[in-house]
């Protein structure tokens, strides 16, 4: 198992609740995850699985009525949940950079992009306006925006979707963060632009030596980008494995179903796709026992009454899954 000292981000037992009419409901249930220094982690899950909330909770940016019920999140050996707001603001945008899904709504429409880039530099790094401006030009060049000297004068609506997402990434990188959290940064983009962004992040990661958390619903997209993958389902981690291991030997029935339902260009075309039946539970209305049990082809009686723990299943301990039927799953393979 990876040593704790090498962990940049270490989340333990994180539980998030939402207030509903009938009292608080759990939407993220005891999540354990960690990111090593220089590691790229892919967090995969479908809508409503809690992947975005988990990341927002780290920065204490949860929306109204949603709060962290318990758990710890250590970043660089400091507990993010216990920090004062002042300290936390230094971390946000400073040591941890964020890139959001929709670059149109996450950029301030009435502010020139140069100023939006300069803002964190002046605030976090105490740069002068002039220095910040030069750094902004440098950053735009870094993310591959042509003509950065002119582009810093542009407003967000004057840029294309791909260019805006590059600006978002530049803002996320502005203060040379130790960790970049990207929440579905390419979902709104076309495939050819998506490929550009992925290549850009790959290059930057090596150049800057930072850790990256890449949140997505698309297992294919991150295959060539990440070192390790954490699969979330209905607010719990169901599988956590190094990337090659996960794609070659998925152990949780959900991961297997998900991988099987993604058609490949390299497969022989078949008329029907493999699919997982049923629907994921609504956030906050998770069934008793394993949340995947109602859709699981291997479900046993115990799955409907008890919640499986995330346990190491490989000798090295780097591959973990939360499933009672994991042995059966191996046989089925």
């Amino acid at each position, binding site marked *: 198992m990876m040593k704790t000292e090498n962990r940049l981000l270490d989340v333990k037992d994180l539980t998030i609740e939402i207030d509903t009419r009938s009292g608080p409901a759990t939407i993220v249930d005891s999540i354990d995850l960690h990111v090593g220094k220089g590691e790229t982690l892919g967090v995969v899950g479908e809508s409503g699985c809690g992947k975005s909330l988990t990341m927002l909770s780290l920065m204490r940016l949860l929306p109204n009525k949603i709060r962290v019920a318990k758990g710890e999140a250590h970043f660089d050996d400091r507990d993010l949940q216990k920090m004062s707001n002042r300290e936390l603001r230094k971390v946000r945008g400073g040591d941890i950079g964020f890139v959001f899904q929709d670059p149109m709504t996450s950029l301030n429409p009435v502010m020139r992009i140069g100023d939006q880039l300069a803002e964190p530099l002046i605030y976090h790094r105490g740069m002068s306006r002039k220095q910040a401006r030069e750094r902004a030009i440098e950053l735009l060049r870094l993310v591959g925006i042509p003509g950065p000297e002119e582009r810093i004068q542009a407003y967000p609506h004057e840029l294309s979707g791909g260019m805006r997402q590059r600006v978002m990434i530049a803002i996320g990188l502005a203060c040379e963060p130790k960790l970049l959290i990207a929440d579905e940064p390419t979902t709104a983009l076309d*495939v*050819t632009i998506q490929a550009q962004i992925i290549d850009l992040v790959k290059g930057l990661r090596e150049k800057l030596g930072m850790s990256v958390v890449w949140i997505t619903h698309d297992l294919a997209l991150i*295959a060539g980008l990440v070192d390790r993958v954490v699969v979330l389902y209905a607010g719990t981690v169901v599988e956590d494995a190094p990337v*090659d291991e996960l794609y070659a030997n998925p152990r949780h029935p959900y991961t297997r179903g998900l991988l099987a339902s993604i058609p490949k260009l390299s497969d022989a075309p078949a008329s029907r796709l493999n*699919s997982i039946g049923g629907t994921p539970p609504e956030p906050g209305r998770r069934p008793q026992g394993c949340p995947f049990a109602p859709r699981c082809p291997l479900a046993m009686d115990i799955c409907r009454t008890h919640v499986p723990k995330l346990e190491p299943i490989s000798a090295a301990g780097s591959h973990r899954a939360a499933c009672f039927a994991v042995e059966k799953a191996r046989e089925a393979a």
Partner: protein
Amino acid sequence: MGAQPLLKIENLVKHFHVRLGAFGERAATVHALDDVSLDILEGETLSLVGESGCGKSTTGFTILNLHRATSGKVLYKGEDLTALDEKRMRPFRRDLQIVFQDPYSTLNPRMTVGEAVGEPILFHKLATKAELDGKVAALLTDVGLPPRFASRYPHELSGGQRQRVVIARALACQPKFIVCDEAISALDVSIQAQIINLLLDLQEKYGLTYLFIAHDLAVVRHISTRVGVMYLGRLAELASRDALFETPLHPYTKALLSAVPETDPEHERSRKRQILQGDVPSPLAPPSGCRFHTRCPIAMEVCRRVVPKWKDARPGHLVACHAVNGE
């Protein structure tokens, strides 16, 4: 292929007129669709792929007369649909249906599932009031929903369930042709596969013809008979599924295929992508000549000046590119 064309689309053009500037002082034309010709054969699944703004959805909307064509023809049963007003179009609407991208916004939030599915049945007088409940129940069963869902409201259903309702509503008219406009794009991965399988089952059962509009090439490859690739309002390439994926001819098709990520880390890390530089130009001022020439890796002088002809490169394999020789 011996199948007869169900719809013949000839030189279809759709321009949108917009006003730009803070006070709408500049008039401009969006070239959403330019000179698109294709036949849709009976019983086939013809897919249209391309990036946003390429005109694939506009094609679907214009065929169904939901957008009025600027010029060109859509021939169905010997009638040019583009020439029909809404009233004369109505009998054809039954045959030609559409399933939209976003199941959250295409259902009236104030109507129950049963009312939504029953509405076209009553309106087109396909059943009496007494038969209606049974008919709705049968349709819901067809799309894999329990009949008791008839009394539910859309906001009580998940995305996949809503899309099933939308499909049931389209089926209620007993159509021959359905445009699936990004019908699975808004759904979760595990649900996408369910809906695709459902569409394929229904096609088999009712002999439907699909125009499948999508951007996910891997999905398209699994379900299509033929595939068309669009770029900035024009067709770039159209071929049978295997020909398009095995031997793509147009440089844009090649680039598109190389950008599709695969669930294979080894392959993904080692592969050399042919990454297109730059963005899709604005449809307000499309480039002269071949519209792809600004991003094309093999653009020649002629591509800047002359619009490439839409020609058969091989039998049934149409392409618009100067670098590809015709037959």
